[in-house]
């Protein structure tokens, strides 16, 4: 895909495309499709690019207690790109925040799992869905932690289309001003927004330079390689400076379903046809 600005990333983008998913990643994707099949709809591409990021965060970094979701000392994770909520629901259910069976009721009239996450869901910190809200809320939480003397961290995961929103950059400037070293911005850089390529719709390159210019210590990684994710989150955690962190995760929209990968048509789907479900099953197994 051609774009105006040459990408200069240390991460090999071919390796991102080729990343092989392990059993756990495929299991989490099956949970996502369990919800989509029962709910009759869902944002597919935007959830599939997130799975490894959220999985690694909850498996290894985000301090949490599924039995006590409001634990005061917990780390806060905000999924600012709320339309990727199926990945978060899969991980939260898998970790025991709520029963896996709730996934079967996704978007049902009386389910707490809607098409965008709300705080009625155990483990969800903020109602998101309108884009460009999460980083400001996250920095407020980071300031609250500082005022209350808590050492917990705040993670905010945003989409690459979402960062078109001006409010994201208002928040970035503010996080820099307050030296919020307890705040980490994570960008799901799958390079496709709803209408098409981010390089055609609204190019944000040079992206790493932008975050650096806004005062963040920038890291990047292959967002589907769990070892690379762990390594970079460890490096980011070990960074001792007083700047907020930004982790650019190179990902593939629709990762794990070849027909959906890099395909804007799989951004959101209603009523998957039997042939499409067959494509999903053959990609993920059952």
């Amino acid at each position: 895909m051609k774009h105006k600005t040459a990408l200069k990333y240390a991460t090999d983008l071919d390796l991102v495309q080729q990343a092989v998913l392990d059993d756990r990643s495929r299991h989490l994707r099956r949970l996502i499709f369990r919800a989509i099949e029962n709910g009759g709809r869902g944002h597919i591409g935007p959830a599939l690019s997130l799975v490894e990021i959220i999985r690694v965060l909850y498996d290894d970094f985000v301090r949490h207690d599924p039995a006590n979701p409001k634990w005061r000392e917990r780390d806060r994770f905000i999924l600012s790109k709320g339309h990727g909520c199926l990945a978060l629901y899969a991980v939260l259910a898998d970790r025991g925040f709520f029963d896996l069976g709730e996934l079967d009721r996704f978007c049902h009239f009386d389910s707490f799992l809607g098409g965008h996450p709300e705080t009625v869901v155990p483990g969800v910190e903020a109602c998101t869905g309108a884009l460009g809200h999460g980083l400001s809320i996250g920095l407020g939480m980071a300031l609250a932690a500082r005022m209350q003397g808590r050492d917990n961290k705040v993670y905010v995961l945003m989409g690459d289309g979402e960062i078109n929103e001006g409010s994201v950059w208002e928040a970035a400037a503010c996080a820099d001003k307050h030296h919020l070293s307890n705040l980490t911005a994570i960008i799901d850089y799958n390079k496709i927004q709803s209408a098409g390529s981010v390089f055609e719709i609204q190019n944000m390159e040079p992206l790493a330079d932008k975050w650096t210019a806004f005062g963040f210590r920038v890291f990047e990684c292959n967002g589907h390689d769990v070892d690379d994710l762990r390594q970079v989150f460890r490096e980011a955690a070990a960074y001792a400076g007083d700047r907020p962190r930004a982790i650019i995760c190179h990902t593939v929209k629709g990762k794990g379903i070849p027909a959906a990968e890099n395909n804007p048509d799989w951004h959101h789907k209603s009523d998957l046809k039997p042939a499409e479900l067959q494509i999903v099953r053959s990609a993920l197994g059952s």
Partner: protein
Amino acid sequence: MRKRSLDMVHTLAKRDERVVFIGSDLSPNLLGEMKKEFPSRYYMEGIAEANVIGMAAGMAMDGFIPYVNTIATFITRRCYEQVAIDLCLHDLPVRLIGNGGGYVYAPLGPTHEAIEDIAIMRALPRMTVTAVCDADEMTRLMDATLDWPHPIYIRLGKGGDPVISKAERGFAIGKAIDMIDSETGASDVLLISTGVATTQALKAAGSLAADGIRCRQLHVHTVKPLDADAIVDAASKTKLVLTVEEHSVIGGLGSAVLETLSDRLTGALPPVKRLGIPDKFAEHYGSQAKLMEDFRFDAKGIDAAVRKHLAELRR
């Protein structure tokens, strides 16, 4: 009223460690004493209203009570989605203090005139909308905000407004205040007003009473939740209802009163007339008082409107 409101933030901060102040590029040294005493709970942020609202939400989610202050148009229009979602959907105790409700900034023109702030704030579920009439009442409101569990919009007047409120009439969020003593509650005209328009209405009530017109006046410092019981009761005992507000006639106090009477009044609806800002942006500068006079909701305009409508009823 503005100074009292901000001084009260400092007072509340002394009383309760959950209180935080967040300003968006306001005057230098604003709340300087609070900044000195509680530097960690004093934030003067940039010109970034959307961010400031989200930041306040994040703090409130972790137990703080942020008082956010900037010009009324900016704190309502500019960041409406943040107010709706970050504050109202999460039902957080964040207080929005809007400088210059109505025509306070008349010399600065329409970009700075908050003429629909009550309407748009009122349309949001869980939002409480207040417009007190003077500095003393502001003290009572600010006292009450500490334990109110929902977001609040606090509309400010110009400052230096005459003090007409009385402590003995009490104060509770959501409770209208009878401004004129009356044994039976019956009246020829029921004036219902909010903010500094209450001062104008009270003045008009004086000149009308001098001519034997029985006036009752409800001051509605809380437009939402509206004191429906008081309004319905008073409306059932009058010949004419006149609402007065320094706000667009679309969606503000007058609309709220009409909706309530339409929904709740079981008997015949008395004529209800609305005074306020017509559906237009100001075409003049000058002063707040001059624009209120121009749109005929100053004391003189209210007096004239009451006499005219009562005369129509007699015909």
